[in-house]
């Protein structure tokens, strides 16, 4: 099956087949990371620029390692994206990037739709590494890869996603991805963190974490971003942890073999207690490991896939 997406802007545009192909490809790249020489020549001569307008050490490092393991020349650019700072516009940034003749731009931006803006105007491939509160496709794909490894399948599973759904691009991308592969998604958070119509994306909405977790195969906790809550989203983190924090008692309501996920970095004692975070059901480090493989797969597939043989010569 061929992968015919020039860009990875979101899971919304992907089919179940696309997603499965990415996961299968990632699976085959996992071995590379286990070798003593962790490098294949697949993307030799290709230039990948990571443009991060918003700080994210994890995602950026993961993409950078992925590029390097495929022998691409990877460059990191950080830029400030404050709306009030007058400076280079995104259009100028795009023109400058284009002049550097990259093959792939990996972009993180605080404005939803920014990668789409770039993709419309430039020749290179764009991979969305997180745009505003919209999508974070590579995170959802690594989550799916982790679930598939742990559960053997995705179809028919019940996945509870708990936390600040309003501001979470991870949640949106996961809802799309899990739906497309036949899982049932539950979303839970306080009313201030459940945006209007979210159920229409394909999820059941729960007010109480106990109900959301009951019988779940997967419990995915979202990071509470304290800087985003302002004064109006939550009375206090203390209260949040009381009503929405994942504790060992609450985990008992899930299926006995349920797994616990978190996109990181965790606020221990807020959305997740240390007992759960360090407990046997957590797969958080598997997620990180799978992140590199998934990002290798994305870089490989958007750069044409079939060129594998050329570059190996």
């Amino acid at each position, binding site marked *: 099956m061929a992968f015919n997406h020039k860009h990875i802007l979101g899971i919304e545009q992907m089919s179940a087949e696309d997603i499965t192909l990415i996961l299968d490809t990632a699976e085959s790249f996992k071995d590379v990371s286990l070798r003593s020489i962790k490098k294949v020549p697949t993307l030799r001569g290709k230039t990948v620029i990571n443009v991060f307008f918003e700080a994210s050490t994890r995602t950026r490092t993961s993409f950078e390692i992925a590029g390097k393991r495929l022998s691409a020349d990877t460059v990191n650019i950080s830029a400030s994206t404050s709306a009030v700072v007058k400076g280079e516009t995104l259009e100028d940034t795009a023109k400058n990037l284009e002049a550097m003749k990259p093959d792939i731009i990996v972009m993180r931006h605080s404005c*939803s*739709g920014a990668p789409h803006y770039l993709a419309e105007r430039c020749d290179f491939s764009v991979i969305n590494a997180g745009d505003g509160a919209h999508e974070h496709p590579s995170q959802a794909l690594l989550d799916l890869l982790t679930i598939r490894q742990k559960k053997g399948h995705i179809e028919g599973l019940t996945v509870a996603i708990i936390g600040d759904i309003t501001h979470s691009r991870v949640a949106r991308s996961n809802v799309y991805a899990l739906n497309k592969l036949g899982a049932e998604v539950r979303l839970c958070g306080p009313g201030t963190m459940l945006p209007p119509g979210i159920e229409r*994306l394909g999820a059941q909405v729960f007010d109480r974490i106990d109900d959301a977790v009951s019988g779940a195969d997967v419990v995915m906790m979202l990071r509470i971003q304290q800087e985003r809550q302002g004064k109006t989203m939550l009375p206090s983190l203390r209260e949040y942890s009381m009503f929405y924090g994942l504790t060992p008692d609450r985990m008992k309501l899930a299926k006995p073999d349920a797994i616990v996920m978190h996109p990181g970095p965790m606020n221990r004692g807020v959305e997740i207690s240390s007992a759960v975070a360090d407990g046997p059901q957590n797969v958080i480090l598997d997620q990180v490991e799978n992140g590199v493989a998934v990002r290798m797969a994305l870089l490989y597939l958007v750069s044409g896939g079939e060129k594998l043989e050329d570059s190996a010569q």
Partner: protein
Amino acid sequence: MKILITNGRVLDPAHGIDEKFDVLIEDNRIAQVGTDIQTADAEKIDAAGCLVVPGLIDIHVHLRDPGFEYKEDIESGTRAAAAGGFTAVACMPNTSPVNDNKATTQYILHKAAQAGHAKVYPVGAITKGLKGESLAELGDMKQAGCVAVTDDGHPVSHGEIMRRALEYARSFDLPIVSHSEDLSLVGDGVMNDGFVATELGLRGIPWVAEVSAVARDVMLAEYTNARLHVAHVSTRGAVEIIRAAKARGARVTAETAPHYFTLTEDAVRGYDTHAKMNPPLRTSDDLEAIREGLADGTLSVIATDHAPHHPDEKNVEFNLALNGIIGLETALPLTLRLVEEGALSLSDAIACLTSGPAAALSLPGGTLEVGRPADVTIIDPEIKWTLDPQAGQSRSRNTPFGDWKLKGRAICTIVDGRITYRLSD
């Protein structure tokens, strides 16, 4: 100088006229409306197949002059107005300097008299500097030529200031135009709050931000027995509040803009900044309510909220783009589209562009009565055309209707008996 317009379908909703008549213009005034008008020395315009209507009036336009002439100025703005069939526009005070004083009002009137493509009625600010803190010199501005006052772009958030503004303006019979919006509910929203915002991951502006503010302003108008005109109504809730207030006899009028009865929040998909405006595009239910409000007269005015911006101000991330679209050259065909779709009678549609706006701000014009200044628009309702934003008369191109297939447009615009626009083919 005389002009004789022959064979047209004369539509003057203010007087219930809808007949095949000739119209004679003499000495800048409507001299005669009737059949078989004979005159020797008049310039003849054959309006066969066309509508001959009172000059269209747009009471909500941002001419950006003084201060933002790179977006639009009085000359280019009135040229766009004439090309859209408008013979008069009322211009909002959020210029630089703000039109909160007689000198700025006089500057606008002076420049408009020179540009001359359309009549310009300045609208002054309610509060000094649009700051919402203290009343501007409303009486002085009225005397200088302002036809209404508004802090458009900024709601008057403080209840008492709005109350005092209404009471004070009442003494001068000056309508207050309210930009009704509760900013504390708008927050950092950039589009309508709802499913589309959720899907796109954009911050939402809830409909209640408009409705609660309209409710306050309407109640204050009733309390003070003052004249209130509600600008750019975009929600079902606001239509319902205005309808009820009018039924109680409140001195309230209201407008909507073509984009609110033509587009919904779906236009934002793809992060199209040409669909970013304030108030934001709403849902299909709101669109339906706006159409009902126009049909039953709750909304008696179609105004464009013509808001020109430079391409650099729109060619950015959605969050950072400025609000607003141009509208002078698309309002008429989009209104006729409403007629074509059966949502509004042709006569009511023309009324919303002529007698309705004239009544809301007590402007001269809006009718073809004999003796009135000869402001006339001739419309070919059948002409089919494709909107090319680059070909527009406005200095700006920020329209979401680029490449739209439109039907009907003004072919001749006459201001005080002078032809200010003629469609060349």
